[in-house]
């Protein structure tokens, strides 16, 4: 006859309670009380979009408030020496670095920005170009003292957040002339979105692009079984995962405090941003 009390409870009563696993908690963010709230400047709506590297890495194990403050100071100092323009994934840029082995001691590379990342002084971006039928990608650290000049030749956005699929696309989509002239936008115009649909080479690819929900590629033309498999790997519930979203962001109050810190220099940053949009190509004579 089955007992009324389930066996599971009997087993667990004599078991020791589970060992207290130390799950480190992140305390709620409290606004900076030292700052003077009278002349507080409101957070610009595009601050986090134009200067994303000023925001720290949201992972708590990588946070260090003092280091972040010191880095932001150094970043502002560096920006006062070399103007780092506003750019997005899909913008075509030219970077001049110091090269002791070159004849004129500089090395210039033109390419399309396929990815960017990093926080603070370690912020980087990747430029891709195809030279002599060879695809080339160079990663530049934005605040490296070796960088002499960064100019944006064509400021635009793309439909995707990362253009790594250009590695598997036809070379014409990654080829840009090295002597490209900068294309100027009218003053105050929004950043144009290039809705080009890129054609990929036949498989094999570097990644399973059919699973990445890419907007900027033409129809991949794969057999149906690929799309069926891709559907099994989809995670539609992640769209509603509020805590995953929260853990990946810096809260609004913290962004406002970070902006207050750099607010004295913001005018300078914005004027140099507007200038770099207006400036004609200057041959680097360093």
């Amino acid at each position: 006859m089955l007992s009324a009390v389930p066996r599971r409870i009997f087993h667990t009563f004599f078991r020791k309670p589970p060992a207290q696993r130390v799950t480190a908690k992140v305390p709620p963010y409290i606004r900076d009380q030292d700052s003077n709230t009278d002349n507080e400047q409101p957070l610009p709506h595009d601050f986090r979009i134009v200067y994303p590297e000023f925001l720290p890495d949201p992972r708590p194990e990588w946070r260090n408030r003092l280091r972040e403050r010191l880095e932001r100071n150094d970043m502002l100092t560096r920006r006062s020496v070399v103007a780092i323009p506003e750019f997005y994934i899909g913008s075509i840029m030219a970077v001049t670095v110091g090269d002791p082995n070159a004849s004129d001691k500089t090395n210039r590379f033109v390419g399309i920005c396929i990815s960017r990342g990093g926080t603070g002084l370690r912020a980087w971006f990747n430029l891709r170009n195809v030279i002599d039928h060879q695809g080339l990608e160079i990663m530049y650290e934005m605040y490296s003292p070796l960088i002499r000049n960064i100019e944006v030749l064509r400021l635009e956005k793309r439909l995707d957040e990362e253009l790594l699929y250009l590695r598997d696309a036809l070379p014409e989509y990654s080829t840009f002339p090295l002597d490209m002239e900068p294309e100027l936008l009218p003053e105050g115009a929004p950043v144009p979105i290039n809705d080009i649909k890129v054609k990929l080479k036949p498989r094999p690819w570097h990644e399973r692009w059919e699973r990445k929900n890419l907007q900027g590629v033409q129809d991949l033309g794969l057999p149906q079984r690929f799309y069926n498999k891709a559907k099994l790997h989809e995670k539609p519930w992640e769209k509603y995962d509020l805590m995953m979203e929260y853990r990946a962001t810096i809260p609004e109050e913290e962004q406002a405090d970070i902006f207050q810190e750099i607010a004295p220099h913001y005018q300078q940053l914005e004027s140099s941003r507007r200038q770099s949009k207006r400036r004609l190509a200057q041959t680097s004579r360093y």
Partner: protein
Amino acid sequence: MNQAEIRKLIPALRVAVTAKKRRFSNPRGPDGRLHKMRTTVNELIKNERMEVNYNRADEARGYAERLISEAIRYGDCHRPTMELADFWLPEKQNVHKLFKVLVPRFKDSQVSYTRIHKAPHVYPSPLFDKVVLELRGNPFPPLEKFTTKRNWIHNILLEEAHREYLEKKYKQQEQEQEQEEEEVQ
């Protein structure tokens, strides 16, 4: 990559959260964790007080706070917020309750919207940490004893002594002022 997500501006949570999410493996599979959280949040909004295990409560607390703050910020006329409420609250009367009852209750609040109290372990259930998860402003009797030290004899006597001292000081000041006026005349 390893930059903060910048597409959305989110207000800070007013509760402490674990650095990493808790896994909650369950037979439903990959979406089971969120389903479990959804059930907990739904019940919290419906009944405003519930007794659960600590880990589940702590994780669901974050989701509940986020849901309420999204509802406060964007309101019910905002389509993505409505879809979010639709996902998180499978019982549709709770969607109404969220926007019509909880948003007015919490919209001017500066503190967290939820509270957690430790609950006793009752023999013979397994030795898991039990807590009571509740929304602030719920209609039930409070679980915390609100103790105040003002009625302690020490404090009453000190207050009286302070008052007497102030009275004496004002009298002295008045007398000094009168003396000065006499001298001037």
